[in-house]
Structures are given as C-alpha cells and as structure tokens.
C-alpha cells in the first residue's frame, strides 16, 4: 500500500492534503509507545501508591506539580486568543483560534490527568467541591480548572462535529452550528475563569507565610504572584501558540497561517512580556528588600545554596524575560521568522523556569535554623508520567490536525512558499 494512499479518506475534509494513513501511523507509533510506558508508570503509582516516586516529606511537590503549572501557563494561549478574537474583535487571529483551543484542551486535560495520579486519594477528589475552603488558593484552582475544562470541551466539540463524517448526521450539524454561534459567551466565561485560576496558581505560592522564599505581600487577599502569574501566562500563551503552529508547519510541510498572524502574535507577546518583566523586577526588589527581611531572612540567603545561585534570578528576568521581549518588540527581528521563533522559545522557557523555581526551590531551601538544603531527582515513574502527558498531547493534536479543520486558511495558503525558495506541491 503506497505510503500516500489514504484509507481514512472519508474522514478527511475535501480539498486538504494529508499524508498517507500508513505514514501517519508511523508518525504516531513512537508517541503511542511513550503513551503506553506512561500509562504503565501511572498504573504503578495508582496501584502501589506514591512511594513509587522519589517525592518525600520535604519535597511534597515534585516534577508533576511543575508540569501542571507549566502546561497550564502555556495553555493560556487558548483563553487569551479567544478573548482577543471574540471580545477584542481581533478577527485576524481566527486563523489560529481552533489550534489554540485544541492546545488549551490538551494542556488542561493533561494537567487534570497528572493531578489525578499525583493526588494520594483520587477517589476523594470531589471533596474539594463538597467542603470547599475558600481561603485556599487550591480550592479556587480546582473549581476554575474543572469549569474551564468543561468550557474548553464545549469549544472543542464544534470542531469535532465539523469532521466530514460526523457532519453528515443532521443533529450534529445543527448542534455544531448553534454552539458555534454561542462561542463568544463561552469565550467570555473562559476568560473570567482563566484570569482567576492562572492567578490562583501563582497565589498558591504567594500565600505561603511559612516559606519566606515564596511569600509575597499583595493587594488584599491576592499576593503579587497572583497577578504575575496571570501576566506571564497571557504573555507566553501567544508565543507558545506561534511556536507550536510553526512546529506543525515544519512537520507537515504546509503553510498553515499567514505571516501577518505570526507578526501579530509576536507583537502581543512582546508587549505583555515587557510589562511582565517590569512588574516582576519591581516585585523582586520589594520582596528582597522589604518582605523577606521582615521575617528574618536576609536577601542573599535565598541564593546561597547548592546550584540555586543569583544566576537563576538573572536568567529568569534577563535572559528569558528581557531578551525575548526586546526581540519581539523590535520590528526587524520580529519580521524574521527565525528570530521570532527563538524569542518565543525563550519566553516559554522563562515561564517554565519561573514555575520550576517556585515549585522546587521553595521546598529545597531551609526554613528552620537547623534545616539543611535538600535536593530531589524525579525517578523513572515520574518522568514516564510526564511523557504520558506529552504523548497524549501530541497524539490528540495529530489526530485533530488530520481529521478536523484546525486551520481555516490552510486551503488558500496551499502551495504558498513556507521556506525561502521551496515551493510545496502538497505531500
């Protein structure tokens, strides 16, 4: 069977070229394998308990919570693009909205998947809804992430029903049409929820009075990390979106969105990143000179242990904050596709580093006078579960790209030059 024959022709929309089913299966095979290994690791952790991981009483949060925070921050592209398209009427981003919603759905469902394994007693997860403690940031995170996952799936369903085979059922077609008409309401609700829980994820650490490294003063009940997390999430969302779309273009060899959309995403990301860097710098200065000394922790103390030196703070704000912001704001570098992608990648790494510092370094640093600095390395079960989420994401995105119309302008751009000089005949 030639690699280009499409067995699943009836599911793929007309006028769009997709690789042969065999070749597609070969692309999915390694990810399915990774998914299998991850599922086995998850089974071990659920069946035998969390002693399967390297976490301990000091490192109650480990690789998984870092993963949760990071993919939810990167998944912020979904609500922010929805917000821009439907509420700010930035129509040109419609080209990338569907992909953003799929990415958002993957990130949030992946985060919930990992949380289900990370929690000691998953069967009691509903207790947070039944006995909510409104003072806790984690309650707010639980409520909002579950609601927003519902909203995301409601935004994902219309795309699902646009599939050529499913569209033939009249009720599906009608439901897809009607839901599509109401999507702006969902986008508004999604934005409200997301602003709250992106903030609360930051608030998780800001309220820790017992951890001076993470504790921050703030505005009424919200610590400053609440606002910094929102800012960093919406700053990095568009970059991650541009990065992933570029990746998909490279893998499939097709032009999927016009260059103007890349420029627009880059500009938005650059502006917000600059604003974030400024806010972050002010917050760090206030923390080092006011908040931390007030509870008896000298500023240099937080950075004098193991490999967690001052370079970490410099990298987070400077290399991964200021540099990408500059690259994205300067029209010449934003115009060049290469620089735009490096800046986007740097911005994403900045958010990952920030989440890592707040999750792992907070726990590593001593608090009592006779505490010692401790380190932690994840074991294979934890890394395999991490791989499980990544594999789940890639597989879901590949399937969505193949069977659902993610990129409305793909047809017009078919045949356009995606690399300098190579004309694409459509593989």
């Amino acid at each position: 069977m030639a690699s280009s024959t499409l067995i699943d022709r009836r599911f793929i929309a007309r006028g769009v070229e997709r690789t042969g089913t065999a070749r597609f299966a070969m692309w999915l095979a390694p990810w399915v394998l990774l998914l299998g290994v991850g599922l086995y690791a998850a089974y071990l952790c659920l069946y035998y308990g969390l002693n399967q991981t390297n976490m301990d009483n000091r490192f109650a949060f480990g690789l998984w919570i870092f993963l949760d925070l990071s993919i939810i921050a990167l998944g912020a592209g979904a609500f922010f693009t929805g917000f821009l398209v439907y509420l700010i009427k930035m129509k040109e981003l419609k080209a990338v909205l569907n992909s953003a919603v799929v990415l958002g759905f993957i990130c949030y469902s992946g985060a919930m998947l990992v949380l289900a394994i990370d929690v000691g007693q998953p069967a009691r997860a509903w207790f947070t809804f039944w006995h909510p403690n409104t003072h806790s940031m984690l309650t707010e995170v639980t409520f909002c992430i579950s609601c927003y996952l519902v909203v995301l799936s409601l935004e994902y369903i219309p795309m699902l029903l646009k599939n050529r085979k499913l569209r033939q059922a009249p009720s599906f077609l009608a439901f897809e049409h009607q839901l599509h008409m109401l999507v702006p309401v969902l986008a508004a609700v999604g934005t409200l929820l997301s602003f709250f829980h992106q903030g609360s994820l930051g608030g998780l650490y800001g309220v820790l009075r017992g951890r001076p490294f993470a504790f921050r003063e703030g505005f009424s009940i919200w610590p400053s990390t609440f606002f910094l997390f929102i800012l960093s999430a919406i700053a990095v969302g568009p970059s991650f979106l541009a990065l992933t779309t570029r990746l998909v273009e490279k893998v499939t060899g097709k032009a999927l969105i016009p260059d103007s959309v890349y420029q627009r995403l880059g500009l938005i990301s650059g502006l917000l990143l600059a604003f974030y860097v400024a806010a972050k710098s002010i917050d760090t200065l206030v923390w080092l000179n006011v908040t931390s000394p007030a509870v008896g922790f000298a500023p240099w103390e937080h950075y004098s242990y193991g490999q967690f030196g001052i370079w970490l703070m410099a990298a987070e704000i400077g290399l991964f904050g200021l540099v990408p912001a500059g690259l994205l704001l300067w029209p010449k570098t934003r115009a060049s596709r290469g620089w735009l992608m490096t800046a986007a990648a740097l911005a994403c790494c900045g958010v990952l580093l920030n989440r890592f510092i707040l999750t792992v370094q907070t726990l590593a640093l001593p608090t009592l006078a006779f505490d010692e600095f401790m380190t932690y390395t994840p074991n294979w079960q934890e890394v395999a579960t991490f791989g499980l989420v990544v594999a789940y994401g890639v597989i879901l995105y590949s399937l969505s790209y193949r069977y659902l119309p993610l990129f409305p302008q793909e047809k017009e751009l078919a045949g356009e030059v995606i690399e300098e000089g190579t004309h694409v005949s459509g593989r």
Partner: protein
Amino acid sequence: MKPTRRDVLALGGGAVASVFFTPIPWKLLDDASIWTQNWSWIPQPVKGPVEWKESACALCPASCGLRVKMAGGYAVGLSGKDGALCALGYGAHQMNWHPQRLTVVRHNGQPSTWAAAEAAFQKACAEGPVAIVDGRPGRGASQVYRQFAEKTPGALYAVIRTPEEEALRPVAAIAGVPVERLGYDLENTKLVLSLSAPLLEGWGGPQRVQRLWPAMQIIQAEAELSRTGTCAARRVQIKPGSEAMLAMALAHALLDEKLATGPRPAMSLAEAAALAGVELDEVKGLARTLAAQRPSVVISARPEPAVAALNVLLGAVGAEGGIVARNGAPAPAKSMDELPGTLRAALLDSTVPWDRRPAGAQEVFRFAAWRGGDEQGWMLPAPGFLEEATDNPATGARAEALLKPPAGVKTTVAFLGGELPAAQPVESAIVPLTCKLAAWPSAAPNGQDGRTAAWTAAWTPAVLAPLATKLHQESKLMPAGGGRRQA
C-alpha cells in the same frame, strides 16, 4: 417491530438523562470515598473495652513499673507507673509479635523438639560439668537455678555482671564487701563527676539517671562528645583512656587543699594532669567543686582502682548519696567469665544478653524469646514480654503474667523441673559501711574492656518507631520488613 439502533439510543438516553434523579450516582459516590477510608487490608485495632493493669518490664534489670492498657485480652499500650519508660519500653508490647519470635525449639539452626532438648540436657548433666547462667540474680527463678546447681553433681551457678557492678569491684575490694551488696544512692546525690560513663544513655537502667538528673548536677569528663556530655552541666575534655590519671590528679588536689586526708597516689599531680590533658587550675577547680557540693560521687565506666580510692578520699563510700551497701542482696556467685575453661554444657536463662555465652561450653542450651545472632547449640523458646511472672530483684515484688504465651513456649524453671517459689518481698535497706584507705592501690590493669557499648542506647531516629526492641538495640538484626537503623 424489531428495535433499531435509534431505539436503543433513545432507551439509553432516557436512562442516562434521569439517572441523576435516582440515588445511584450519589450513594455510590458517597460509598466509594467511604471505601477508601475502610480498605480491608488496613489493620484495625482490637475491639473491646479498655482496661488498665499493672506489671513490670522485664527487658532489663531496671524492671520499671508498668501500667498496661489491655483490650480484648491483648496489650495495646504501655506507660510508666512511677515515671517514664525508655525508648524500648514504649514499643515492648509489640515485640511478642516480632517476626523473629522463637516458638519452635531449634538445634544448630534446624527445628527440633522439646523432648530432644531435654534428653540432650540430661545426657550433658550426666557426662560432665554443666553451668546454669542467670542473667538477673535475686529472682525467684534464681533460687531454682541455685537449688538445681547444688542438687546435680558438677553443676555450677554463674551470673552475668552488669558493667555497673564490674565498675564497683575495686570499691568492693577496698571495702571488703561482696560487690552484689554495693550500689549507688543517686537519689540523694547532688554532684556526680562521670569519667566517660554514659550516665544519660542508659547507664544503670535506661531511665534511672534521666529521672534523677534534673535534681543533680553532672560533670562529664570524656574524650569524645557523647549525649551525656552534651547535656552535662559542665564538660571536661580529657585524653582517651586517661580516666585513672585524672582521678589521681584530683586526689592530689584534694589532699593539697586539705579537703581530705589519706595516702597519696604514686604519680605526681603535674604528671597525672599532663597525662589526662587537663590544666592544673581546672583540676583544682574540679576538686574544690567536688568537695564543696557534697554529697558527691565519682563514677567511672570501667573498674578503676584509682577512682575507687578517690571516692574513699572524698568520703563518698558508705555516705548518703555516694556508694552504699544494702542488705538482702542475692548471695555472691561467680561471674560467667570466671567459669572453668572446659564446660560440657551451659544452660543460659532468657535474661542473658543474646550475644553472651560461656567461653568453653561445648554445648549451649539458650532460652530466648527471639531468634537472633548465632544459632549454635539449642535455642529454646522462652516466654516473651509480659508472658511470664517476673520479680524485681531490688524489691522482690512479683509481677504476674498478663498475656498468654504462644504454644510451644516453656519457662527455664519448668525445663529444669522446678517450681517457681512464692514471691518473698525483700525490704532492702541501706546498711552502714565504714571504709579506710590504707595505701593508694597500685595501678592494676583496668580490667577487660568495659561493656559500655552495650548500654549506650544508640539514639535511633524513630523511622524504626515502635519496633525498637532489646534485641534490636544489641543485635544487628533487622526485623523482617522493619525500617533501616539510621546511626
């Protein structure tokens, strides 16, 4: 009309739509989370009303008073009667279920039977000298062992000396009194100078000194920082093994300052202080404190004639708060180490520490409640914690057995065919003791290396928690599935 796919869908739709109006989802959700609280594989405490009974702990000679919380016929909690128990005491009731519990007679590592053991013992008694070793003389069982020893020809009765008794041997020599009758009257002591003695780490019974310590002052002279050194009011750094030299230096200081009268040690003050590695004025200061805060006593970990002499100079021997003699002590008996070189067999009581055996015994009959260490000879299952009546040697009070021993367990008394005599309460009183120091004793070798290590209850962070056992403290044995011993 044949149901079509659409009908089945409609049926399913109806069911699913209205399932939330039935108790199914809600009751199952509620029960599912309750199920996670009652997993069948999580053990549950014994059901039944709780009652408190009194007994004594038989893990070591201290015989601390016990209040035992009983439920459903099992011991479910321990607490001290007149004071706290030691780190081992609070987990002792769990030791009966220790995976290494011995309930089957074993011979050289192979299971055997009581009959075979008795036959072997009869043969051994007939053929040659047999020694009965008693770990804790002065109990009802000890009398049975002594009668057996007298009755059978060629049988000897031997005891295990605790390191504290060993250390008092030089004082016994000077005072001319059997060492069993000597003891420390720490209840009235104000100042103790300890020469590397682990006073707060289990010396003289795990909690004895700790209970009295708040009322008295400890000065610790030692080479290496120990837990006692940490908590002591004052710590004197000395060279390793130079306890005797310090004692001689102190004796000189006392005599120079006219705080005491008596013969002088051969070695001069300056030389002794130098060997001990202590400044002269610190020695003088120590001497003055010793004299000022009487009643004071000097305790050394190992038998040191110099220390005994110093105590006599101080007037601590025979005085209140120092080293005193008491009546009603068990009759003197040979220590296990003084047994003749060749022995046909030795019967070791369950109170003999698991790693001690007479040197020359060809065949060993050891009573033990737990396996562990060398499996040479006969291992005879003995009753465990609170499973046999025990007497407190000091007061003669008898604590009845509270728990039923498992099948296949016999007491040593029963094995020897004796009967446990009725408890004779011993009203032990302090007897006046006068002692003069004729000449400073020659610096005899300070005896075999003191068994201080045995009594240093190595401090164990409680990752191991309640399974800290007497066995564990002395043996390298890991309870099956038990936690790691973390130095």
